[in-house]
């Protein structure tokens, strides 16, 4: 991946992130923050590669901590977001599912 292509990706991704959030209602701010918190858990793949290529003990220990924390970011972010979003049901959907 050449430098300039990477720069294009950076710019387009930045606009994408901005556009996704721009029209979001306030009620979804917390779940969305939690959801984006999950998405940067992708750092896991970078940490895996870093640890997978580590050859000194120091690099392995730091890599281990990195993979551990990244996995925690991804898993924790998913569970918390899923639990929050689970509650967003309209009154129509709730009646259908037999709830209140």
């Amino acid at each position, binding site marked *: 991946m050449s430098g300039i292509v990477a720069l294009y990706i950076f710019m387009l991704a930045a606009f994408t992130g901005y556009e996704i*959030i721009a029209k979001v209602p306030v009620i979804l701010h*917390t779940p969305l923050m939690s959801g984006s918190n999950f998405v940067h858990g*992708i750092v896991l793949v970078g940490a895996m590669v*870093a640890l997978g290529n*580590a050859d000194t003990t120091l690099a392995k220990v730091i890599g281990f901590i*990195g993979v551990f924390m990244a996995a925690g970011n991804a898993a924790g972010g998913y569970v918390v977001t899923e639990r929050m979003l689970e509650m*967003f049901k309209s009154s129509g959907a709730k009646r259908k599912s037999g709830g209140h």
Partner: protein
Amino acid sequence: MSGYLTNPEARTWIIQASYFVTAFLFIMGLKRMSSPVTARSGIVWAGAGMLVATLFTFLYPGMGNYEWILPAIILGTALAWISGKRVAMTDMPQMIALYNGFGGGAAAAIAAVELYKGEAMSHTMGTLAVVGGLIGSVSFSGSLVAFGKLQGLIKRSFRFGGQQFVNIIVILATAVVGVFIITGWHADMFHVSLFFVLALVFGVMMTLPIGGADMPVVISMYNAFTGLAVAFEGFVMQNAAMIIAGTVVGSAGTLLTQLMARAMNRSLGNVLFSGFGDTGAAAASGPVTGSMKPIEASDVGVMMAFAQKVIIVPGYGMAVAQAQHKVWELCQLLIDRGVMVKFAIHPVAGRMPGHMNVLLAEAGVPYDLIADLDEINAEFETADVALIIGANDVVNPTARNDKSSPIYGMPILNADKAKNVIVIKRGQGTGFSGIENALFYLDNTRMLYGDGQAAAGQLIQAVKSV
């Protein structure tokens, strides 16, 4: 098939294709999460993306150390999964802070692994690794402090004279050491270690003076930081999935932080460098005339049962008292009697924008009964009863007309415009900001003293017996 998997070029191609799918799933997932109707499926899309990227990364040519990688993944996933399932809804904000800090720490760890190698990097790569490491470290230690504050582990805000000057010295020193490393002049183990220690210290020092009420904005900011750090390390690792996902979160998180700060009528600079948002920081403003007038639950029950329209204004106090289920039970009784019931949510009700909606949703309140500030404010004039439970500063009319008040200019819910205002309150104290609430002294306001849950229970009985 096995031929494909042993050929490094084919493997790299398969990995790149899987990252492309992941980027697509992430963006679609976030897009779906930005509307209440599709939000629940959004996280599943994003989750599928994460799973695809993680599984295909094992195909990376030349990977080893699986005896380290697998335990780290299993341990991290298991601990976070269990803690995430167990945490109470009221404590969600600090868990987000904790997981976010982990992400920042992981980005910093990648930078550390690369920089400790001591191999010559191009200045561009070196800069990206160092800046990503700095942002990731600040996000890590800062998020842990934010977690500690919201969890109640760190009780006070640490402030001293010239604090901002010291902070500037620390960040400058970090930058100088960073430049040593990038230029390769002092890229040895000592300087790399010093760099990370300074960055971690800066994250702590920057977050400690900020008050608990402002933490949501700070957590959102660190969320954007982590995204950016991940993107920078993605450049270093030549990993498109990290660049795209990290950048999307970085820009989305920045916008979200601004929206949150704006909802509190504060600028981000004001949140970071002023220090209001801490209990007791604000002095009581001008004298309030009149007196608080108490009322009995039975009278409130009659008032609400025969009302046409009731607006509930919940605050964090309601959630702490675990009263939301009782409040919703009360509302259902009223709705069955033909009363129109709505919930008015201030943007900063709860501990984060949208947090109160989550807490109400947990109690079973359908989201179409919940209105935000812009939608509901005109409706208070036609409401027979505004029931304030656990909210204080967000309904204080002082914010509209008293320029000397620290909350002057903050948008508030116009509960004072309702025909009758009922305030459920434990005692006669002031709110989170320590400011006297003029609403409590108005002629159309009555105080129902008691614990939120008990008071809601009494109201249920009162309405039932009408």
